[in-house]
C-alpha cells in the first residue's frame, strides 16, 4: 500500500528579476485505494507538485515522497501530452519504461495495451495514432509498470469531450480493479467530482486552501442530483478563489 506524504512543501523558481513561488507550505497525506484530485486555477503549482513527487524536480523546502513499506514506491505518470517517443513503435514505447525486458514484461505490456483497446496498434508509430489513442498508450504505459501509485497531470484536457468521457470511464474501472493510489491534477471541477473520493484545492500562489472528502457512491452520473450539488459546492469554492486571485 502506497503512501503519498507531502510535508510543508515549498517550491520557488528563480525568475528574471523576481522569483516565482509555485508551492507554499503545502501538506497532505493520502494512502491506499484512494483517488485524490488536485484542482486549482492555472499557475497554482499543480503540475509542479506532481513533478516533485515523480522526482523530476526537487523541493526548495519541505518533503514530498511516495513510499511503500518505508522505501520509495513505484510510480506511474500520465502527462498532459502523451509524451511518446515519436521514433519508437507503440510496443517499444511501452517497453522503454520497464525496469527489465523479459517475456513476462512483454506479456504484461500487451495486456495493458489490450485493456485500453490498442492491441492491434502495437507495431504502429505514434504519429499514426489519433490524439486520443496516443493518450491511451500513455495511460497503458503508466499502468504497465504495475505502479504502487499513479500521477496524472490533466491527462484528458487536450482531448475532445466524447473521447475524454470514454477514457474517464476506462480510468475509473482500471482504478477500481487495480486499487491504486491516484493523484489526479485537473482544472475541470466536473471531472474531479466524477472521479475522485477526495479533492484538494490549491489557490494562486500555491497554498492549499481546502481538502474535501466526497462520500458519494460510484459510478457517478453528472446528471444525478447529489453529484450536481457537490459540483456546485466545489465550484462556489472556486469562484471565491478567483476573486481572491484577481
Amino acid at each position, binding site marked *: 500500500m502506497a503512501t503519498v506524504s507531502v510535508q510543508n512543501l515549498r517550491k520557488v523558481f528563480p525568475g528574471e528579476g523576481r522569483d516565482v513561488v509555485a508551492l507554499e507550505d503545502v501538506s497532505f497525506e493520502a494512502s491506499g485505494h484512494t483517488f485524490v484530485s488536485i484542482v486549482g486555477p492555472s499557475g497554482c503549482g499543480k503540475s509542479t507538485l506532481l513533478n516533485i513527487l515523480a522526482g523530476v524536480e526537487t523541493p526548495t523546502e519541505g518533503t514530498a515522497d511516495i513510499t511503500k513499506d518505508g522505501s520509495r514506491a513505484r*510510480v506511474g505518470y500520465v502527462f498532459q501530452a502523451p509524451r511518446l517517443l515519436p521514433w519508437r513503435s507503440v510496443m517499444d514505447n511501452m517497453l522503454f519504461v520497464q525496469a527489465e525486458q523479459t517475456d513476462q514484461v512483454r506479456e504484461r505490456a500487451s495486456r495493458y495495451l489490450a485493456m485500453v483497446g490498442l492491441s492491434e496498434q502495437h507495431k504502429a508509430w505514434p504519429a*499514426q495514432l489519433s490524439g486520443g489513442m496516443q493518450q491511451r498508450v500513455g495511460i497503458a504505459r503508466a499502468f504497465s509498470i504495475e505502479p504502487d501509485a499513479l500521477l496524472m497531470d490533466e491527462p484528458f484536457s487536450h482531448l475532445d469531450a466524447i473521447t475524454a468521457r470514454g477514457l474517464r470511464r476506462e480510468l475509473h474501472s482500471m482504478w477500481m480493479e487495480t486499487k491504486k493510489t491516484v493523484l489526479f491534477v485537473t482544472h475541470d471541477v466536473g471531472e474531479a467530482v466524477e472521479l475522485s473520493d477526495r479533492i484538494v484545492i490549491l489557490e494562486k500562489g500555491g497554498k492549499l486552501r481546502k481538502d474535501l472528502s466526497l462520500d458519494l457512491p460510484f459510478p457517478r452520473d453528472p446528471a444525478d442530483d447529489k453529484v450536481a450539488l457537490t459540483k456546485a459546492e466545489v465550484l462556489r469554492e472556486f469562484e471565491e478563489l478567483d476573486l481572491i486571485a484577481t
Partner: protein
Amino acid sequence: MATQDVEATAPAVRIDSEPEEPRPERARRQRYLLWRIAGYVLFIGAWAFISSLTEPYILPSPVAVLRKMVEVVGRDDFWVNIFATLRHLAIGFTLAFVIGSAIGIAMGRSAYWDAFFRDYVMLTLTTPGLVFALVCVMIFGLLDIGPIVAIVLTSFAHVTVNVVEGVRAIPRELMDMATAYGVPRSTRIRNIVLPAVAPFLFTAIRYGFAIAWKITALTELFGQTDGVGIQIRVEFLFFDIAGVLAWAFFLVGFALVMERLVLQRLERRFFRWRPKAFA
C-alpha cells in the same frame, strides 16, 4: 540562443533541400519529367553550339570532355591520385566530425563553452577557405597533414553549429518522462538523445562534407604531390580546359553520388517513423 549569429552564416537554402521530400512534390517531378529532360537537352545543345563557334581549346565540346574523362581514367596514376584525395578527405573529415561534435555538445550544454567557441566558429564559417589552405600549405609544406588540418579547420564549424542545434532540440519533456519512470541513462541516450539529434547529425555531415571535399582539392592544388587537386593544377598549367572540366566532373559526380545515394538512403532508413514517410 547564443549561437544564432554563428549559424546564420550557413546557407539558407541547403545544398540538397529535399532530403525527405513529400510525396506530392515527387509526383509533380514525374509529371514534369519531359521538361526536365528538355532542360538537359537544351543545356548540352547550347554547350555544343557555343563550342562549335569557338576554338576547340577555348570551349571543348561535350564529346571532347567525355573523351578526355575516359583518357584520364585510363592513366596509370589515376587511382593513385583518387586514393590520395580520398585518404585526405576521410581522415580530415572524420577528425572534423569528432572535434566539431565535441565542441558542439559542449556549446549546446553550457553557456560558458558557447561563449568560448562562438567567435572561432563564426570566423571559420565566414573566412574564405583559400586563407586556411594557404596557411596550412605554408606550415606543413608537402606533408600529408596539410590538407587534413585545412579540412578540419574549415569544416568543423559546420558540424558544430548543427550539433549545437541538435543538442538544444533534445525534447525536455521526454527526458522528464524518462526521469519520472527511472529509466537508466544509457537507455535514455539510446532512445531519446540519439534519435532527437540524428537529423541534425545528418545535416552536419552533409554540410561539413560539402565544404571538406572542396578544401581538399584546393589545398592539394597548392602543396601536394599526389591528389586530384594537383592534377587539376597540371591541366591548368598546360591550358587544357577539357582536362580541368574532366577532373571537375569527377569531383562533382563523386560528391553528388555520396550525397544522393549514400546519405539520402541512410537518412530514409533512419527516419521511417516520420509521418511523411507513410502519408
